[in-house]
């Protein structure tokens, strides 16, 4: 570890320690209402009680199933649509601005419509998560497949590659880094939008439990749920980041 990495680490740990200390101190002295910010010990207690309940695991299962379904739909539809659009410059020029433009406004706006069409159960969350994640996946797929270096395609043609051979050995590997980037962004958007949908309006799942704890003014429990979501998100983020680094080492970097 170099010296500057070490000092950065010291600062990070110190900063987090100060935040934690401030949390402890402000709740211990009673300068902040326990409703807004419960004591660390209370949150820990709520968390340790929560994770042993069947209610916790059934909520997690509902949310994970919803995310998996939504993401699978977004992947299939997004990549297929992106590939088809990328086959013609004209289609890209006509359709890409629609997709990109729609993605600049929050798809959350249309959430009430999803509730209207698909009901308050998981169906509306699947549809909402899939729709939101569709955009980054499709946009990156268009860019990935449209920007394959022409000299690679020309070389494949000169070597007598079949259509399938070109697709399998040139188009897909060349598009993969950008495609994976879209898949990563799409995953986190899917994750957040399913949680958001559950928080806004639902009958089950992690998001519903957060909102319910808030409605019951059970702050410690709400913080415990939020901590669970935050830890999950950070773990996933580090995991995917690590996978990406390993993949890029193997392929000798981007092309």
């Amino acid at each position, binding site marked *: 570890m170099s010296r500057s990495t070490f000092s950065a680490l010291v600062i990070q740990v110190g900063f987090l320690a100060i935040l934690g200390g401030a949390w402890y101190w402000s709740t211990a002295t009673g300068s902040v209402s326990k409703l807004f910010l419960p004591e660390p010990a209370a949150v820990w207690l709520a968390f340790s009680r929560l994770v042993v309940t069947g209610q916790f695991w059934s909520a997690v299962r509902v949310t994970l199933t919803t995310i998996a379904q939504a993401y699978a739909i977004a992947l299939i539809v997004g990549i297929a649509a992106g590939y088809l659009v990328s086959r013609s410059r004209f289609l890209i020029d006509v359709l890409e601005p629609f997709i990109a433009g729609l993605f600049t406004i929050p798809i959350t706006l249309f959430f009430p419509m999803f509730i209207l069409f698909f009901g308050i159960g998981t169906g509306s969350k699947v549809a909402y998560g899939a729709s939101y994640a569709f955009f980054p996946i499709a946009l990156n797929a268009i860019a990935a497949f449209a920007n394959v270096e022409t*000299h*690679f395609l*020309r*070389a*494949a*043609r*000169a*070597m*007598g*590659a*079949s259509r399938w*051979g070109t697709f399998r*050995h*040139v188009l897909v*590997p*060349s598009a*993969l880094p950008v495609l994976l980037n879209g898949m990563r962004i799409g995953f986190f958007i899917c994750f957040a939008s399913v949680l958001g949908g559950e928080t806004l309006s639902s009958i089950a799942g992690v998001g519903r439990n957060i909102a319910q704890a808030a409605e019951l003014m059970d702050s410690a429990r709400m913080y415990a749920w939020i901590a669970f979501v935050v830890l999950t998100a950070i773990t996933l983020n580090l995991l995917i980041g690590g996978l990406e680094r390993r993949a890029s080492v193997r*392929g*000798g*970097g981007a*092309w």
Partner: protein
Amino acid sequence: MDSKVQSFPTHDIAGRPLAISIRNVSQCYGQAGSAQAVVALDNVSLDIGRGEFVCLLGPSGCGKSTLLNIVGGLVAPSAGDVTVDGRSVRGEPLPRQVAFVFQESTLFPWYTILENFRIALKFQDIARSEWDSRALAALDAVGMAGFARHYPTQLSVGMRQRVNMARSICVGTDILLMDEPFAALDEQTRMVLGEDLSILLAKTGKTIVFVTHSLAEAVFLSDRIAVMTARPGRIKTIVEVNEAHPRSPDFMLEPRFSDLRNELYALLRNEIRQAVAAQRDPETGGEVSS
């Protein structure tokens, strides 16, 4: 029109076997007669014999790469005919007869060197059992066998182009079309690769068409040099170099070498000026690539 165009010539007038025959080929981009229309090639004819090394030399934008792409079937000509080994080529590559080496390394960066060779052989429908032996033999021939498991990005530009050349050779076609393969290399590397190429020609008897704008490279490598005019590209004249392959670097020190080089420069000087002037003019400038 020449009657030979219809009968697909297989021999030249002197009776020697022909590898490639280019007859009255023209290439025009944009609609004929419109303001944007660009005539890249204008009525080009050229016969290339078996085992011959022919250079297409000319100023940038003269359509020499376009001509090479037409011969290789990557581009269909607007007019005229090309035959390779007596077979007509119209915008359809003949991967069994013709292999390309491009200016950019076309080794796929997502595969290792060995995997790149395997893919090329697979595309050529060569039996799987032969892949590795042929690949390693070709790599060995250019002294790169130790790099089979490396990714292309781990090699220097010169090494990459050497491997790139080896890949095109290992598929075993009689004809090799090379589009400025050494243009991105430094002077010293390109001299070494040029020597390698000359040795290869002597060993395998391949027919090579080589596009370049380097005068020295053209003289060092070619049996014949087709000097082209600025756009619209025509063949201005053909210069012969009578020197057996493989050629040693000593050839470059002979007075004959510099005489030929000077002759080429005298032929090209005005064409280069015209091409540079055309590039400055935005209306007609810029290489039209396929």
